[in-house]
């Protein structure tokens, strides 16, 4: 975009053509400003943007390990506090594996200490970078390399971990969920989260071309369908309360089948499994009053 913030994430990176995560990251960058330091967990976003000796980033950006991005952010925040710098914001970016599973303990610590850090999870619903292993974010029925569909299994038997509820249980003042395909929603939520005093959490659904076995041009469409079926609603909690902007009384849910049948990771599903997933969407619609 013809926007000075685009330089925060330059082209020339090695993301797959049509990557939903990189598309979402561009929307995130439009919500940031130049006084931001980013700590990035290991994962596709880090690997594709920093093929040494090159970097796509135009903001101070650090990668240390897969599991410790939250702790690195805490350290940066502590150094800024010591210097009396109140202007510079600290942002963490991680994949769902880094967030739901492997970095989880350190994220909980960051939230427990109430540090003023924005944590953004790019949720591809699997460990994309190492070949689509199932993570705590993998939804029911998805075929991954560690939950392959076949004669004895119809994909993951586990339900997706509810990270939003876990974030809310830490009394975060700002917790939100968005999806690639809604770039303005992402940008707006990043801006709001950044202005929150205290820790904030934003989780963005990012369709993954090889992981979801979809076409190069379908990431935005699937990001939208996930929302339109009720499987991944656009949500925002301010001070623990679901904000009015999340509630849509005219919501006409599309059948989950429309979302599932477009993805190779779900193509083995039989009617019984599809109806389980339809129930999950119905639960969301009830729970979030959309």
């Amino acid at each position, binding site marked *: *975009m*013809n926007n000075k913030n*685009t*330089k925060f*994430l*330059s*082209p*020339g*990176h*090695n*993301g797959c*053509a*049509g*990557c*939903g*995560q*990189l*598309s979402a*990251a*561009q*929307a995130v*960058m*439009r919500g940031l400003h130049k006084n931001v330091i980013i700590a990035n967990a290991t994962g596709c976003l880090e690997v594709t*943007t*920093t*093929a*040494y*000796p*090159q*970097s*796509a*980033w*135009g*903001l101070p950006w650090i990668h240390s390990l897969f599991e410790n991005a939250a702790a690195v952010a805490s350290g940066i925040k502590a150094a800024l506090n010591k210097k009396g710098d109140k202007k510079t914001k600290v942002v963490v970016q991680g994949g769902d594996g880094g967030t739901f599973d492997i970095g989880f303990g350190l994220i909980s610590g960051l939230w427990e200490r109430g540090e003023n850090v924005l944590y953004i999870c790019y949720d591809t619903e699997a460990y994309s970078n190492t070949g689509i292993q199932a993570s705590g974010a993998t939804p029911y029925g998805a075929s991954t390399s560690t939950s392959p569909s076949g004669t004895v299994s119809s994909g993951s038997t586990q339900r997706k971990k509810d990270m939003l509820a876990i974030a809310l249980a830490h009394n975060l003042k700002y917790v939100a969920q968005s999806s690639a*395909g809604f*770039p*303005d929603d992402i940008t707006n939520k990043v801006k709001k989260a950044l202005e929150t005093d205290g820790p904030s959490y934003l989780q963005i659904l990012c369709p993954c071309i090889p992981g979801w076995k979809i076409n*190069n*041009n*379908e*990431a*935005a*469409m699937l990001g939208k369908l996930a929302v339109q079926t009720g499987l991944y609603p656009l949500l925002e909690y301010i001070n623990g309360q679901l904000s009015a902007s999340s509630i849509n009384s005219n919501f006409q849910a599309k059948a989950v089948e429309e979302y599932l049948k477009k993805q190779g990771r779900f193509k083995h599903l039989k009617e019984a499994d599809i109806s389980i997933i339809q129930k999950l969407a119905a639960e969301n619609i009830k729970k979030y009053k959309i």
Partner: protein
Amino acid sequence: MKAPITNLSAQANSSLANKTGSWRTVKPVINLNTCVGCSLCAKLCPEGCIEMKKQIKTEKIKAKINYDYCKGCGLCAHECPVKAIKMENDF
């Protein structure tokens, strides 16, 4: 003995040296008469290589693709609300 300190730092935005346009086999072509300048393609592009530019003659804002980096994913063409972008072979 002190371990050597390795500074693995990189120049900001140095990925620009990597012209990913060479990945492309199909190419998005924008029909400027149809483009309404909504900027959705520019907002969605994973490369961030679509710019909104003022046309010299008409002064209207239209999308412009930087083919140095466009990987030809076709996301822009798929999402364009007025179907102003067509994918064409590029080999």
